[in-house]
């Protein structure tokens, strides 16, 4: 469908009252059309200087662009004898989401599979409501009555069906346990121009062969067109790694087996330096060996580990300090996510969930699955946490764990490896079946419905036993990098979805 021209008759409207969320069903509006959208990107202003060679003349020395405007979109609905949903939305004065689904050969009522492209308008409000003529003075004036509204949305972007392919196949010999985006979008003023999705760092485990092969980082600065390897020579031959994250200008690896962190600068890794790694064990406690890491800013990184230990690091080079020495829970913690520098959640064995509202004081809350090990956590909001379990279930809470709702996934996953949100609408879940075979699920409505990705009509996911981790690209919910164990139970695999 890539080169197919979209015709105006191929669009249909969905609205999501109170915005996309796991319990907010999209509403289909069959008798509605969207008008011309307007998305001002900000005026461009020149900065001039006098022309040194001519009087009364100026040269453009630079320019700057103002902030992007809100998006406006007129919507027209045929008035029916039912109570008007759009009038209700207008009078409610609460933000909602609008999705314009564009398609051709599918059922447009099918929210998840009935589109070839979606235009998402997030955080919309109705700025005007009106109708066409309600009455007809004569037979010639007879016409259908339309409701006409204009929405003003905070942002707008597109979603298309994803295709997946394996990348760096010749370089990935060992299981990928973590993958991170270490890139920043920019126009080239401070670094090379980038779309913010070119520098990717995948953490591969030790090979476990004889003789052993070191765990390493497999990295790229061009989306895996070219690849570099960086063996972590501060580890020993059979030391497995637990997790990794890009922290400011460094990549930080944690290892439960060495009870320490290992870091190298992103540039040294990408430049192929042969000895860029430094090990730091300052602050790590025996019995609190690290398992998972999340970084929110250069100065704010949290690490969770065995025995319920939670560490904080303001600088990987300086090590970590204990935030919680297993007082909130004594269970081993296996995953951690942060919404911001104050709100952090971690999950672990035996239904353990701990969280903080100030970045330092951790409390326990009862998890969703009594006696079950929790393997993945993702924060979609301060109060909205998604949790995956070792027995293949996914739960969500919107009140910090006071109530949990199970979200069903097709295909009977046996384990959940990873949950993540690209933005407030688009999210992914990595799971594995008993076989084992990796499964990837995607939602485009804030978690209300999840579908196996990619669509069967488009392609297949490269065969893998499991996907352990994935990472997103800023401002592009149509791109993902994932890493895990290949389908031979031995090699690693990196998958690019776009």
């Amino acid at each position, binding site marked *: 469908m890539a080169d197919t021209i979209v015709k105006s008759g191929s669009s249909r409207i969905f609205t999501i009252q109170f915005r996309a969320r796991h319990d907010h069903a999209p509403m289909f509006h069959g008798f509605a059309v969207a008008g011309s959208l307007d998305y001002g990107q900000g005026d461009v202003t020149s900065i001039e200087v006098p022309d040194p060679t001519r009087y009364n003349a100026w040269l453009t020395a630079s320019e700057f662009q103002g902030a992007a405007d809100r998006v406006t979109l007129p919507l027209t609905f045929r008035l029916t004898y039912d109570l008007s949903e759009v009038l209700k939305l207008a009078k409610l004065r609460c933000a909602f989401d609008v999705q314009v689904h564009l398609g051709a050969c599918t059922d447009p009522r099918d929210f998840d599979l009935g589109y070839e492209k979606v235009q998402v308008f997030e955080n919309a409000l109705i700025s005007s409501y009106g109708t066409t003529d309600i009455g007809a003075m004569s037979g010639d004036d007879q016409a259908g009555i339309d409701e006409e509204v204009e929405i003003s949305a905070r942002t707008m972007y597109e979603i298309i069906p994803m295709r997946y392919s394996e990348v760096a196949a010749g370089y990935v*010999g060992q299981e990928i346990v973590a993958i991170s985006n270490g890139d920043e979008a920019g126009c080239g003023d401070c670094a090379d121009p980038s779309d913010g999705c070119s520098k990717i760092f995948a953490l591969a485990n030790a090979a476990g062969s004889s003789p052993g092969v070191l765990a390493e980082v497999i990295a790229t600065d061009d989306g895996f067109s070219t690849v570099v390897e960086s063996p972590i020579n501060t580890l020993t031959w059979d030391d497995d790694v637990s997790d990794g994250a890009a922290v400011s200008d460094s990549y930080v690896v944690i290892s439960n087996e060495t009870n320490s962190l290992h870091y190298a600068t992103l540039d040294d890794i990408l430049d192929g330096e042969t000895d860029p790694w430094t090990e730091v064990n300052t602050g790590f406690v025996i019995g609190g060996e690290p398992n998972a890491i999340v970084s929110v800013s250069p100065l704010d990184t949290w690490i969770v580990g065995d025995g319920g230990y939670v560490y904080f690091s303001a600088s990987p080079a300086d090590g970590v300090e204990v935030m919680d020495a297993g007082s909130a829970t004594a269970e081993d913690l296996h995953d951690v996510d942060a919404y911001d520098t104050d709100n952090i959640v971690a999950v672990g064995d035996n239904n353990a969930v701990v969280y903080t509202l100030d970045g330092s004081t951790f409390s326990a809350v009862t998890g969703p699955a009594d006696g079950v090990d929790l393997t993945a956590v993702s924060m979609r909001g301060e109060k909205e946490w998604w949790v995956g379990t070792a027995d293949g279930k996914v739960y969500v809470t919107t009140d910090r764990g006071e109530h949990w709702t199970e979200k069903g996934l097709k295909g009977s996953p046996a384990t959940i490896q990873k949950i993540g949100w690209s933005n407030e609408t688009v999210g992914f879940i990595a799971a594995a079946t008993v076989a084992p075979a990796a499964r990837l699920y995607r939602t485009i409505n804030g978690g209300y419905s999840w579908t196996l990705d990619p669509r069967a009509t488009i392609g297949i996911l490269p065969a893998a036993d499991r996907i352990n981790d994935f990472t997103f690209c800023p401002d592009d919910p149509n791109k993902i990098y994932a890493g895990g164990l290949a389908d031979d139970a031995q090699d690693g695999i990196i998958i690019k979805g776009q």
Partner: protein
Amino acid sequence: MKHMIYTDNEGFMWVAIVPDSLKEGQSPLAYPVAGPPDLSVLGLSQEDTKRLHNGLVEKGMYNAPALLGRRKELMQLLKSLGLKLSIFQIIGVFQQTYYGDR
């Protein structure tokens, strides 16, 4: 410093690190060897060890850094030599020699 390849009396090729001033035809034997590492630990026959050893030198894969990013080439080399070895065995020997005992 530059690299120079020479062959010893038993037919094994070696990569030596020599001064830039060393001219073609001058012996590099007095200078340190950059690789490859001792492959006898792999348990191959003497003949296969030599074929692998020299094949690696010809491909420029003489130490651990020189192997980085070249797993596919290494796999193809093993295939072309008909050797039933895992690339990890080779990488392991190279890494252990380069990074030392850990």
